[in-house]
């Protein structure tokens, strides 16, 4: 019966569509900068360093520790006043308080979401997986700049990192 075949096809299609939503969602987030997903890729400097604006804005750094007793993970500076178009650097500090090795990665998020696509990272510890030996204290560098194309009404940006331990199964992304 034709109707039934067509309906079953719709069902199967929608089942796979639910999985397709994941890449679609990421594509939409990347294109629009929604969700505070900042790019996890190195940016080329010359695309935005031509003009240094006199505009001032605040950038705040925060972190989320999943398990404070195991790994302390904090920004060295909590706030900076910066100008768009110029490259700045700062540090996050990780202290492995446990007596075993910790492997994992920091996942960034930017607020307001709209600012995400204007925050360019030239070098970031979040690009790679990190390994901390027992008791080790590590300084993690971050080089970034704000694209001067960012709308002027944004005066404060918050950059947040959450450090997640890698799960044993081979990672995606």
């Amino acid at each position, binding site marked *: 019966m034709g109707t039934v075949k067509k309906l079953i096809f719709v069902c199967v299609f929608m089942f796979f569509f639910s999985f397709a939503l*994941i890449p679609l969602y990421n594509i939409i987030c990347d294109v629009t900068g929604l969700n505070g997903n900042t790019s996890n890729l190195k940016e080329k400097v010359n695309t935005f360093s031509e003009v240094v604006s006199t505009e001032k804005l605040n950038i705040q750094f925060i972190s989320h520790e999943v398990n404070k007793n195991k790994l302390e993970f904090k920004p060295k500076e909590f706030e900076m006043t910066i100008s768009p178009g110029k490259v700045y650097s700062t540090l996050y500090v990780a202290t492995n308080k446990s007596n075993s090795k910790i492997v994992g990665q920091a996942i960034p998020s930017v607020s307001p979401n*709209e600012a995400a696509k204007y925050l360019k990272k030239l070098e970031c510890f979040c690009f790679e997986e990190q390994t901390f030996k027992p008791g080790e204290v590590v300084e993690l560098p971050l080089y970034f700049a704000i694209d001067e194309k960012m709308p002027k009404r944004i005066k404060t940006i918050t950059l947040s990192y959450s450090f997640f331990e*890698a799960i044993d*199964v081979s*990672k995606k992304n």
Partner: protein
Amino acid sequence: MSTVVKDTHHDEHPSGIMRWLTTTNHKDIGSLYLWFALIMFFIGGLMALVIRSELFQPGLQFVDPQFFNSMTTMHALVMIFGVVMPAFTGLANWMIPIMIGGPDMALPRMNNYSFWIMPFAFSMLLSTLFMDGGAPAGGWTLYPPLSLQTGDAFPFLIFAIHFMGLSSIMGAINIVATILNMRAPGMTLMKMPLFVWTWLITAFLLIAVMPVLAGGVTMLLTDKFFGTSFFNAAGGGDPVMFQHIFWFFGHPEVYILILPSFGVVSAIIPTFARKPLFGYSSMVYATASIAFLSFIVWAHHMFTVGMPLAGEVFFMLATMLIAVPTGVKVFNWVTTMWRGAMTFETPMLFAIGFIVMFTIGGFSGLMLAITPADFQYHDTYFVVAHFHYVLVPGSIFAIMAAVYFWLPKWTGNMYPETLGKVHFWLSTFFVNLTFFPMHFVGLAGMPRRIPDYSLQFADYNMIASFGAFGFGFAQLIFVYLIVKTIRGGEKATDEVWEGAEGLEWTLSSPPPYHSFNTPPVIK
């Protein structure tokens, strides 16, 4: 259609339990679904009473918080998937073939399977109450990472949802195939009763979104057991993604729960107003546009997750747009009653109660749709008040209206009218006593899904708990009344209700086991 054989094997079927296990008759299967829904209604109701007992007073009294949260989670799953959906599927099985003049459902064997999957799925779900780590307690919305902390119950929960979904999809395919292929000659689409129309559209919604839920929960399952990271930020996933998938299913789902009610009410109001339904075709178009719009409003459940302004505004406006076709329906019902020669038998009372109280729920929905306001209302008892108004005096009242309306047809006996009215008035009084105060505590900031609350909410919660027990006991009248009517009573005529329109009233009461083996003539 032309393959229908002459009724040589009338009423020839195995008796006892085998009749019910093997039946492929749409009337038997309709009854099975309805009985199943009734039983689950009491199981889900019992869970609600556990919740209301705990909330009777502030502080922790009866159950521990984990169990309280299992109760809210399981109550929702049972009521949505175990009561409202199967009850409507039961009505569809019983009524659609005899409303369109077809001999049975298009796929009778599959019909049997799709019913018998349900008791299986629900045994699996309810068995989690006895497992290590308790029943699922992360909310019926299953948001990760919380839902991933479920104990041994987790895989049972997911597979139960898979099976419920499978059953609904099979039921929906069957309904679409029946409506498209089994109509009597002359029964054009635009002559179909609205109950059939609303079910056709509901079935399409089911076919489109149940697989999305199945996909979403499958991803939860692989995240938990197979190390994928669909929703796990540590592995590059995103928990908010689950909310998008869930509500992409979830919002159309709430329309799955309400559209068949629109059909029921559209059948009852004209009968007791003794006037044809006002604006039949606008009703059809309104239903179709509600269904279409339901796909583009899902993020109104997620206003607070941190969407960009453009997203908030889009979903706010799209949600408000749904109020337009919904309003068309309400106006059409009211206009149908306008200057009608109305009488107020029990089905009509439930239908009118539906219109009034569903509209209250619609209005609180509109309030929730206002993004900046929702930042205050979200996850408070105001939301609980909203969806209970649309679901209890909404969907559940419509189901009860349908049962009173068609019970004389099904059984051949009239139900006791006075008792029916008592049931209606008690239910209406107690449902409002239960849910109206929730608006106030919600606006005042009482969060949902929490077993304790601060003192200023105490009075209204006590009132709500009284209401809930009253409502629960009032439902025993319903059961008594159904059993009594099946056992006997004043004989119903074939037409049952004076001036009732539709093919179902041309059959005898009760109808023969196989009806319309020769298609009726449609005027």
